[in-house]
């Protein structure tokens, strides 16, 4: 019984298997964390970063709207705004930490600029929420870096809405230089 359970193959191949597994694990860790080196990869990351920033801004907007319609407690909304700001800071910081490949400096300027704007706005929002100045929060849309106008939150299920173009303003700017960026930005449609 014992011999049968032990299996015959294991012994000789064990070191080979161990090395192979380690190599695959190391490679995949690197794959997960390697900075984008090519212009295309950088543009993809740029588009993804803008997508995240937009997602975070939109989330903040939903919470502010919810407070405005008394649909949520102030505690829950403040917590959510803190989370959103922290996420945006992390998203923007991650992108800013990558060196742009040759010729991608304009992309970096656009996206890091947007990141700074978004984090500043969300930070102001968080402070206003902590001070319980919810009325001020409601006005923030007008100077929000990512346009939110024309986006009716609920009760509209149609995929094509007026104002959609405005949402992807930055996408279009990226598109002018990097077609890939444009494609990635439309992932959420």
């Amino acid at each position: 019984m014992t011999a049968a359970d032990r299996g015959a193959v294991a012994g000789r191949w064990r070191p080979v298997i161990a090395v192979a597994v380690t190599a695959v694990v190391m490679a995949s860790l690197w794959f997960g964390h390697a900075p984008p080196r090519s212009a295309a990869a950088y543009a993809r990351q740029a588009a993804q970063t803008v997508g995240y920033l937009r997602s975070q801004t939109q989330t903040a907007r939903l919470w502010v709207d919810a407070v405005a319609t008394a649909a949520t407690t102030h505690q829950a909304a403040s917590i959510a705004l803190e989370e959103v700001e922290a996420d945006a800071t992390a998203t923007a910081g991650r992108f800013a930490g990558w060196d742009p490949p040759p010729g991608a400096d304009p992309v970096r300027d656009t996206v890091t600029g947007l990141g700074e704007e978004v984090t500043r706005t969300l930070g102001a929002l968080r402070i206003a929420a902590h001070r319980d100045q919810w009325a001020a929060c409601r006005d923030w849309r007008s100077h929000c870096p990512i346009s939110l106008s024309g986006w009716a939150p609920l009760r509209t299920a149609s995929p094509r809405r007026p104002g959609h173009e405005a949402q992807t303003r930055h996408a279009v700017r990226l598109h002018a230089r990097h077609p890939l960026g444009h494609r990635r930005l439309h992932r959420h449609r």
Partner: protein
Amino acid sequence: MLFGFTLGTLSAIGGFIDIGDLVADALVGARFGLRLAWVTVLAVIGIMCYAEMSARIALKTRRPAFDLARSRLGPRYALGGLIGSFLVTALLVMAELSGIALALQLASGVHYLLWVPIAAVLVFIVIWTLPFEATERIYGLLGLAMLVFVVAVWHLNPDWSRMWASATTVAPTSGESWPAYLFFAITLIGAQMTPYEMFFFSSGAIESRWRPKDLTEMRVNVIVGFPLGGLLAIAIQAVAFLVFFDAGIQVEHISQTVLPVALALGKVGLAIALVGVFAATFGATLETLFSTGYDLAQYFGWAYGEVQPPARATRFTTTITALLLLSTALALTTLNPITVTIYAVVFSSVLLPFAFLPVLLVGNDKRVMGELANGRLSNTVGTITLLLSIVVSAAAIPLLILTKAGAS
């Protein structure tokens, strides 16, 4: 009869919805709409089959299904499965504890890291003092609060034809890749077909002292409980779809899971949803801890169980306490619970065949099961589910790496 019925049903729902579902369903709904709802349907059918099988084994032998697993897998493979599930559970309990703490944070405004140790102490007290049945009943009942997600779907006035179109499409949404789509399909399977649901449903059958004559009652529980859990899961996907999809919002926090309910039903809805999240994560913490304790105790033949006072099952109690401490420490590292959940459910899906195969074999063992051995339906669905789980298990890690855990 009625009482036993509700108890089992609650256990089925409570077992189904946990942090994995709260995270994965909202994430998937926001990114893919209802285009992965079919995965939930498959997962419900698969888990119903195996939960019924393991409960039937428990009725017949009065021992949990996995008790007989070691002689089928052999000690080596069983040990591999055991170590794997121990690690996955540590991650999962960490995520569940964070889920409890995040629900309390949203309700109170106090930072979640302060709630983590409190949640852990609360869990420990419940393990130590309350009998199994009482705990199961309490969080099962509270878990019904999750039905608020189903109500929210209607209050969001959805375009039903668009929902249907999304639910009947098997393809990624535009801009998403196939690997990402498949990766999230696996995530959903890992979140919804969890081995501990089987453990728990079958242990519940033992602790409620069901006998072979209660077969019908047990089956009714399976047929009602698990589809209800699946309905809740699809409801979470649906509200995330309705609120987040068009806005291009990615789900990164538990607060976003409950946000649609607040938008649809206001503060009351939010409060009920938070109670539901609390109950689901709290119950799941107990369930995952216990199933790992059972797992280990059964492998080595230790005394186990909630029916015995802790001193009669000291190794069992010590193990789950140690696991709880480990998970609390993990939770306090401020690792993002959502990320940890995704990894945990993916690794859990890797281990699925190890959980399914022995149950299928014992269910067919005529010398153990006698007239309660598997019928044709159990075997057909069981075999298909097993094959599916093998495919999922093989594909999970490559897809995890390829999609960078769903990031692209």
